[in-house]
């Protein structure tokens, strides 16, 4: 592999970086000889397998590796000509946030739960730019505006748990951008965002680059985004950079097998135009013709409002309606794709449908109206209806080994005895593309994508009739994603599973759905078969969505 000759002095230069993980079983290499340069004003996209070391690379640069378990074994990281690996903590402080800013992969756990969004935003601004009190606030509001968060004024006073996943991610981005860093490292910054917002964010990053000459390291698995943004691309696998080159070269003349597989697996919007259902994956296995076509999920006039009931001396905030008058139905063997703006109420709908949050209206699962059921009464229903949560890290018990976490549903519902259980776990892990040894590790020892797969495995363990999948493949690299999606389709074919599939990735929705619903501001603005919605969108917002989908081809870049 030949390195691209730098045009000028690189702002960031990583040489032969090796990172080891300390585990009870001894040291394990996580990064091996990672080298790359980042030139001024350049965007380097790092793509690659989930768990290949992308996040670890970025954390190494920031000197933020969890010291307890990960350590830089050798190598150098240079910012201009400052060596970062042995910089004092104090000196590193001014580098962080000021010179290099970072957007972390998991937005929920990365925001401080007890501080308001406003505080968290303004403190970085105050730290790095000398501003008077009022001004930081103004900048913060502008930044929220820039990442297209509605009602920025109100958001500043809200707390992380009151925001949707996508909104949290945008807050993270706003936070990173607010100090106009020289280098921006963004780890999957748009995973949780719908394409229109994603487009805007990408635009914002490009502007930053243009206006301030910032350089960007963008970690993403979305080859569309890569194609749109990258000047250069690095592909990682197994802790190494296996291929590196200009965007055009990598996209058009990939040398490595993995890269080629990766590109081949990229879904393209419109690939399934003209068909009604998702493609069959189960070759000739007869699709279990489900005789009973009565809906497995029936939703009528669902309304959800957030707000706190008044408790003790505190007056609750006035309730905010998150979902308004949502109705739909889902039959066995069908997938309803739910797309829409971030914060439009998709996750809320998903949770309400499973009775995890209070709602009004009717939700009928498998013929039973779940309104007002007690936890005990819900138990049998839980078996047939499962959810894969949007934020995988937060939804795993940090103190429970992954194997045990997957075994949970089996134990709860009394399926499989102990012996069978281990086999089931191994089987489930294999199916989502994880090694069997993952069972004995803990959630924090996994990469974002790996955690997401753990959550999928957990939901599948019960073989439910209905799965609410909330951005379930968002953090997966395309190859794994394709595998997981195939798995889901296969299960649907063999077992007649129904999916409520929440995603912002239009290509994925196209691939998975029979029907599609588009949400905006708590309402379904358009609903129909996939073909109707994709090929002749009626709502203006739907049309905007379609237009914003990035195309995985650097030549087709719409904005430079």
């Amino acid at each position, binding site marked *: 592999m030949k390195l691209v000759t730098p045009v000028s002095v690189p702002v960031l230069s990583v040489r032969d970086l090796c990172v080891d993980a300390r585990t009870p079983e001894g040291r394990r290499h996580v990064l091996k000889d990672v080298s790359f340069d980042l030139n001024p004003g350049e965007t380097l996209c790092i793509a690659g397998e989930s768990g290949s070391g992308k996040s670890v690379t970025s954390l190494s640069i920031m000197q933020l590796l969890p010291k*307890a378990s990960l350590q830089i074994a050798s190598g150098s990281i240079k910012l201009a000509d400052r060596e970062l690996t042995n910089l004092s903590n104090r000196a590193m402080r001014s580098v962080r946030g000021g010179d290099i800013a970072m957007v972390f992969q998991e937005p929920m756990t990365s925001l401080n739960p007890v501080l308001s969004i406003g505080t968290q935003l303004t403190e970085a601004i105050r730290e790095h730019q000398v501003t008077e009190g009022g001004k930081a606030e103004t900048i913060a509001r502008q930044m929220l505006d820039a990442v297209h968060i509605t009602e920025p004024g109100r958001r500043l006073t809200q707390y992380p748990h009151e925001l949707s996943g996508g909104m949290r991610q945008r807050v993270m981005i706003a936070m990173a951008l607010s100090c106009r860093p020289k280098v921006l490292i963004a780890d999957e910054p748009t995973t949780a965002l719908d394409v229109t917002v994603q487009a805007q964010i990408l635009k914002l990053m490009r502007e930053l680059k243009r206006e301030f000459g910032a350089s960007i390291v963008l970690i993403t698995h979305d080859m569309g985004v890569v194609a749109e943004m990258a000047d250069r691309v690095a592909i990682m696998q197994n802790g190494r950079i296996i291929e590196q080159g200009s965007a055009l070269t990598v996209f058009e003349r990939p040398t490595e097998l993995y890269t080629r597989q990766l590109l081949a697996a990229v879904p393209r919007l419109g690939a399934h135009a003209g068909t009604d259902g998702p493609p069959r994956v189960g070759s000739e296995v007869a699709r279990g013709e489900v005789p009973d076509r009565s809906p497995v999920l029936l939703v009528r006039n669902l309304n959800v409002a957030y707000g706190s009931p008044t408790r003790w001396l505190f007056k609750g905030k006035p309730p905010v309606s998150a979902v308004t008058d949502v109705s739909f139905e889902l039959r066995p063997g069908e997938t309803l794709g739910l797309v829409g703006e971030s914060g439009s109420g998709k996750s809320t709908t998903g949770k309400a449908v499973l009775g995890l949050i209070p709602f009004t209206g009717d939700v009928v699962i498998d013929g039973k109206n779940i309104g007002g059921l007690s936890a005990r009464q819900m138990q049998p229903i839980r078996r047939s209806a499962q959810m894969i949560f949007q934020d995988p890290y937060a939804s795993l*018990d940090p103190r429970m080994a992954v194997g045990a976490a997957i075994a949970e549903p089996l134990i709860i519902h009394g399926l499989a005895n102990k012996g069978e259980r281990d086999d089931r776990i191994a089987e489930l892990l294999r199916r989502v593309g994880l090694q069997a040894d993952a069972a004995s590790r*803990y959630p924090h020892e996994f990469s974002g994508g790996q955690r997401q797969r753990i959550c999928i495995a957990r939901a599948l363990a019960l073989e439910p009739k209905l799965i609410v999948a909330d951005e379930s493949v968002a953090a997966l690299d395309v190859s794994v994603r394709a595998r997981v999606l195939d798995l889901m389709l296969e299960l649907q074919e063999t077992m007649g599973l129904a999916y409520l599939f929440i995603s912002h990735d239009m290509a994925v929705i196209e691939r998975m759905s029979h029907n599609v619903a588009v949400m905006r501001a708590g309402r379904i603005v358009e609903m129909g078969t996939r073909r109707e919605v994709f090929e002749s969108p009626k709502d203006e917002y739907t049309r905007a969505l379609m237009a914003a989908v990035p195309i995985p081809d650097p030549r087709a870049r719409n904005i430079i």
Partner: protein
Amino acid sequence: MRVLKAMLRQPAALFGLIVVVAVMAMAIAAPLIAPYSPDNQMFDGLTLEGAPMPPSEQFLLGTDTLGRDLFSRLLFGARTSLVIGLVANGIAVAIGLFIGILSGYLRGIVGNLLMRFTDLMMAFPALLLAIVLAALLRPSLWIVAMVIALVNWVQVARIVYTETRGLVERDFILAERSLGAGHFRILFMHILPHLMPTAIVWGTLGIATTVLLEATLSFLGIGVQPPQPSWGNIIFESQSYFQAAPWLVFFPGAIILLTALSFNLVGDALRDILDPTQRGRG
């Protein structure tokens, strides 16, 4: 086994473990080790003026104000104090955990009632309860242990309550609910492990304080009755002698401290070993 092995790898924990085992062995083997009977008020154990004797060859750690051998009393006192420190304190922590976790988790009437009950118990002067029990029951080691347990669980409950309230809001609990896990499972498989650090801190710090509390109870007349020695009552009986006979305060104080510290070292190690997010630390 894994836990034990991990523990043996850490010097501090190893030290703690050794001391803990040693103290327990001392307590069990007290009659074999003790040079004198713990209750023997020896003629030459007091000066002619009636002052206790400082440490010497004859009396390793000196004598107390009745001319008894302090070393022998400390050995036998270990039996009492270990029961108090481990059993009484252990029960208190267990009750506290149980009530605290339930009141923090359950909403509605039951949770509220539990917490108000805890509030009531907390607002109630514990010592008064002890005094009344002293008058109504015949004080014995086990009754003392029971009283201490009844008095001490309240604080643990309160702390656990607050922590549980925070934990319940975490997403993984929601996820667990969506899997259909019952309250029991959520409480004991998912919330409880997160409370272990708190339980361990209270469990180990509580050893020293309960041992001393026993002494306070002695003073109120509900402690173990004389002449049965306990570390607490040895120190309490002679605390005003800190100038005149410092060994009477120093040695029992040191052994309480050492024991509590050792339990704590073991507890800390245990906490780290049980906490997966701390895995890999040396």
